[in-house]
């Protein structure tokens, strides 16, 4: 299965997005397709029977443009050594042959090559090498990155929309004035007598026509897109505007000729100003939408802008500054104080403190020395370090986070899917309502065409579902972006929607509630064996173990200055302990279960073991040659934030459980310390997911919080899997929410963010739908029919629609003010 993201151009509303989704889903080989109106992207999963060009062609056939979302970079390379146009052609050909080069154009006059290329497929150094191979010099480059290109494109779009709106307003304001001024009886407004409607009706009508024409001109897209969609039997928002305003203009032109023919009272049946003002107000709404959309995606842009553009590598002991695209794996990179880390890697020399807050939200700088990992976009504060590049380009943690957030913003929450389905049917239904209302009133008023037309236009305009398509994606964009700013990575709209329903959270103990760095607290020999010997043997046996408890014992022995022995044999007994052979002796180290299985008596040490457990320590029984040799107790400190986080979850009405392989007493002691409601102790790793299932069978919505590596089945089983304190591939794969820091307070923060986002979505849907639901019956004349109440002027309908879009976007942007309650942040 292939996953691709395509940029879609030409969408104007949810109906467009719905239509594209439906069309793509019909293609054979498509497994999933989802369109995000706010970010203008199509996310598609398909098998090898289908080519991407088929998908693009299908989208193009219904009137939209699909462009492959690539991380194309544009670069301008000055070329030396060209002597004529033929040289330019040669260089162009040499560059164009490279796989990954989208386009290349060499200008002999300016001596520059402009190249668009996919940096994942071809490196800048390879392009330069091709130029050199062709016999020319590739000089210092000038590069624009995709984020800047995207920003410029969006800015141009916003500027175009504002220009259209202002142009439209310049003509529609006087149009509105000359239409309204003669009708205002309480004040005599200045009016040009030469176009006074009662005395000069033809001049009046033609003046209105001349003022309307430019407004129609700047709003041409409503007609080209709207009518095209209508003729393809998939009317969208533009279709409603196009039909409504076209009806108004054509009817007004007809009445203009009626006036010319001597039917002067036709001057009362002119609707030029309705058409003009509708277009102007909708353009205003679109302009504000474009500005707001740009702001909703600020989080992604911020993340994209974090990475530095150059890196200083050490080549033969010399410092060399190169564009970041030219960094290769294995390069040794020098980072000075104040510089940003360019790519992911491991420190090979020096030591410093690095501010990783832009990635994790953690404000305290992290000390780094040889062997420690560093991440792209983090900020080197104090020292000078060298590090070896290990992950570059799209493999860095930053790139993965960006991708994760982008994918999350593109994914659909179930509530959004519902909104899309509704909007898909909404427009055709509205057209029918408008037609029925118009026809009904025409006959109901004994042929008053003017009245019927007003009703018809008003229903079309007030029913525009412009805001509906924005209601959910804007909130998700802002919400996931806000989460990313605070180190909370939510992987999808569905995760967001489910998270707010959680009523039970299961925490893994070690490394989640506790620091995950257990230490040896007690070494208690059972018989004549010496303390140090007991520790030495246990630690030597545990050397092969990856379990944190085993590693704590190894560390404890090293810290005590003990030499570790080589094990002749080692076996890990999952959920119970380890078995090893050292210096001819059989060593068993593990929990009570292991001792019971091996029939090793714990007499004399049971009380001690219970006491240790009640103190929250984990007693590891050690047996040598089938006899109990003693107990090594290990304790893992509870995280500072654990208690506070669990208290916060309780305040949110969430029950908290803890799951651990540790013994019941130890688990109970830890649970008491932090306020856990339910303890699931002595659970084998393979049984964790069953425990989660049991909780779910009690009709609960369960979230599981773990470190993602050995908790993967439980994370997958849970309604929401939350990986904490890790940005690794495994964690990102298995969890629905990834918390970049090890702070447990991020768990209630994530739930809180989810609740706020879902609430925001519901509010947006209210604003989007509310205007339509209330407005359609009024526009259709229901109040007038039942209570002789007011009708809805088409211009007021247009104003209401623009207000609806602005309301939704403004409300979505309120989410930016969300501050997670993280205690000490």
């Amino acid at each position: 299965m292939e996953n691709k993201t395509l940029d879609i151009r030409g969408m104007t509303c949810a109906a467009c997005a719905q239509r594209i989704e439906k069309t793509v889903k019909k293609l054979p080989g498509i497994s999933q397709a989802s369109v995000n109106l706010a970010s203008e992207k199509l996310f598609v999963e398909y098998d090898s029977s289908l080519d991407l060009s088929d998908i693009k062609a299908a989208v193009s056939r219904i009137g939209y443009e699909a462009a492959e979302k690539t991380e194309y970079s544009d670069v301008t390379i000055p070329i030396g050594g060209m002597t004529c146009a033929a040289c330019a052609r040669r260089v162009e050909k040499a560059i164009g042959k490279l796989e990954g080069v989208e386009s290349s154009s060499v200008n002999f006059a300016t001596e520059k090559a402009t190249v668009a290329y996919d940096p994942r497929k071809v490196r800048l150094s390879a392009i330069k090498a091709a130029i050199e191979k062709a016999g020319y010099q590739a000089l210092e480059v000038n590069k624009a990155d995709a984020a800047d290109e995207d920003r410029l494109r969006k800015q141009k779009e916003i500027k175009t929309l504002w220009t259209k709106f202002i142009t439209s307003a310049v003509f529609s304001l006087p149009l509105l004035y000359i239409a309204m001024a003669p009708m205002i009886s309480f004040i005599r407004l200045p009016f040009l007598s030469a176009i006074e409607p009662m005395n000069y009706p033809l001049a009046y009508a033609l003046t209105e026509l001349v003022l309307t024409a430019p407004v129609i001109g700047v709003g041409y897209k409503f007609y080209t897109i709207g009518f095209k969609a209508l003729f393809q039997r998939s009317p969208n928002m533009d279709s409603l505007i196009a039909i409504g305003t076209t009806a108004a203009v054509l009817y007004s032109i007809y009445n203009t000729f009626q006036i010319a023919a001597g039917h002067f009272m036709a001057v009362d049946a002119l609707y030029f100003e309705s058409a003009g003002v509708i277009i102007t107000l909708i353009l205003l709404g679109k302009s504000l939408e474009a500005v707001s959309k740009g702001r909703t995606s600020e989080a992604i842009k911020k993340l994209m802008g974090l990475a530095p553009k150059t890196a200083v590598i050490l080549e033969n002991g010399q410092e060399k500054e190169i564009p970041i695209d030219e960094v290769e794996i294995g390069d040794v990179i020098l980072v000075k104080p104040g510089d940003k880390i360019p790519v992911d890697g491991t420190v090979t020399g020096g030591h410093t403190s690095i501010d990783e807050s832009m990635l994790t939200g953690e404000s305290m700088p992290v000390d780094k020395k040889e062997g420690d990992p560093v991440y792209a976009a983090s900020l080197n504060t104090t020292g000078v370090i060298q590090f070896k590049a290990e992950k570059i380009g799209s493999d860095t943690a930053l790139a993965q986070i960006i991708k994760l957030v982008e994918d999350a913003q593109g994914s659909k929450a179930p509530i959004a899917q519902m909104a899309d389905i509704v909007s898909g049917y909404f427009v055709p239904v509205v057209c029918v309502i408008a037609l029925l209302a118009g026809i009904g009133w025409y006959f109901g008023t004994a042929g008053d065409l003017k009245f019927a037309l007003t009703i018809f236009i008003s229903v079309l305009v007030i029913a525009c579902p412009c805001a509906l398509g924005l209601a959910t994606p804007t909130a998700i964009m802002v919400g996931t972006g806000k989460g990313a700013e605070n180190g909370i990575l939510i992987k999808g709209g569905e995760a967001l929607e489910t998270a707010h329903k959680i009523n039970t959270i299961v925490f893994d103990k070690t490394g989640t509630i506790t620091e995950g760095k257990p230490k040896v607290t007690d070494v208690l020999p059972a018989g004549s064996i010496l303390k140090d010997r007991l520790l030495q043997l246990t630690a030597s046996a545990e050397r092969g173990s990856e379990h944190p408890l085993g590693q704590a014992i190894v560390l404890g022995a090293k810290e005590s200055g003990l030499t570790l022995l080589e094990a002749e044999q080692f076996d890990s007994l999952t959920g119970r302990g380890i078995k090893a052979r050292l210096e001819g002796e059989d060593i068993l180290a593990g929990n009570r279960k292991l001792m019971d299985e091996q029939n090793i008596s714990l007499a004399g040490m049971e009380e001690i073991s219970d006491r240790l457990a009640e103190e929250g320590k984990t007693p590891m029984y050690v047996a040598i040659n089938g006899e109990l040799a003693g107990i090594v107790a290990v304790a893992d400190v509870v995280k500072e934030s654990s208690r506070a986080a669990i208290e916060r979850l309780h305040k949110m009405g969430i029950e908290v459980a803890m799951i651990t392989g540790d013994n019941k007493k130890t688990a109970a002691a830890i649970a008491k310390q932090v306020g856990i409601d339910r303890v699931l102790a002595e659970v084998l790793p393979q049984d964790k997911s069953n425990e989660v299932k049991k909780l779910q069978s009690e009709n609960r919505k369960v979230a599981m919080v773990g470190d993602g590596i050995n908790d993967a089945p439980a994370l997958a089983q849970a309604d929401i899997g939350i990986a904490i304190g890790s940005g690794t591939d495994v964690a990102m794969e298995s969890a629905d929410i990834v918390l970049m820091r090890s702070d447990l307070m991020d768990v209630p923060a994530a739930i809180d963010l989810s609740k706020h986002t879902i609430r925001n979505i519901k509010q947006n849907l209210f604003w989007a739908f509310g205007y339509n639901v209330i407005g359609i019956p009024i526009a259709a004349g229901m109040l007038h029919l039942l209570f002789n109440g007011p009708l809805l002027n088409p211009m007021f309908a247009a104003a209401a629609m623009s207000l609806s879009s602005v309301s939704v976007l403004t409300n979505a942007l309120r989410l930016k003010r969300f501050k997670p309650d993280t205690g000490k942040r």
Partner: protein
Amino acid sequence: MLENKKVITAIAAGVLVVAAIIFLAVESAGGTLDVVGKRSVQSFDVILNAIPDQVSKEDGGKAFALTAPDGSVRFIWTGETAESSRFDVKLQADADPFIQAGLDTGKLPKDYDISDNVITVGVKLNSGSFTGAEESALSAYEGLVKNDRSLINYHTDMDHFGVKLGGGNMFEWAKDLEINVTTKQAQDKDIVFVLSPEPLIAAGVDPQKVEGWLYAPVPVMENGKKVQVNKFLKPFNIK
């Protein structure tokens, strides 16, 4: 470049369409933007031809008069402006019915003329309205339309053209003698002499007692709003 060409082509096409509509509309209006003025001349001509016996020359041929079929009131319009004349366009009505109804002629406003038992109301035209004497009643009216267009109006509800004579006094005639296109009823008021009642009532007239004149509300547009205004009316159905 191609984008600019498309934009220019689109704008040019738009301008052509609008220009075509304007051209066709003006042509169908008879080559003029002042469709009310033009149609008023046409319909006035119809009136003049419908009652030629009621049309006469006045003032030594310098003016023309249209007399009501009962002879009680006349509409007079000049074909040649003169400094000496008080009114160039006027309504002359028999004062007797008003005197019988209580009119004290001494209390009439200064812009009302009363002599020989005739009440005259009217307006002076712009100086230089006519360059020479108009030979026909129609051409004199045409001159009026051309040079003092503000005196001409269209009364939508009645489907009438009218000449404003100051102070709410008017002479109106039907756009079409057959049908009132506003009400879609037969036109039964082909010509109407209209007098403003307020100055007459202020001078002592009891409006209900004026013989031969109808005292009734008439819908008029005032500042964009339709209001009912009482008038003294003398309508005639000439066809």
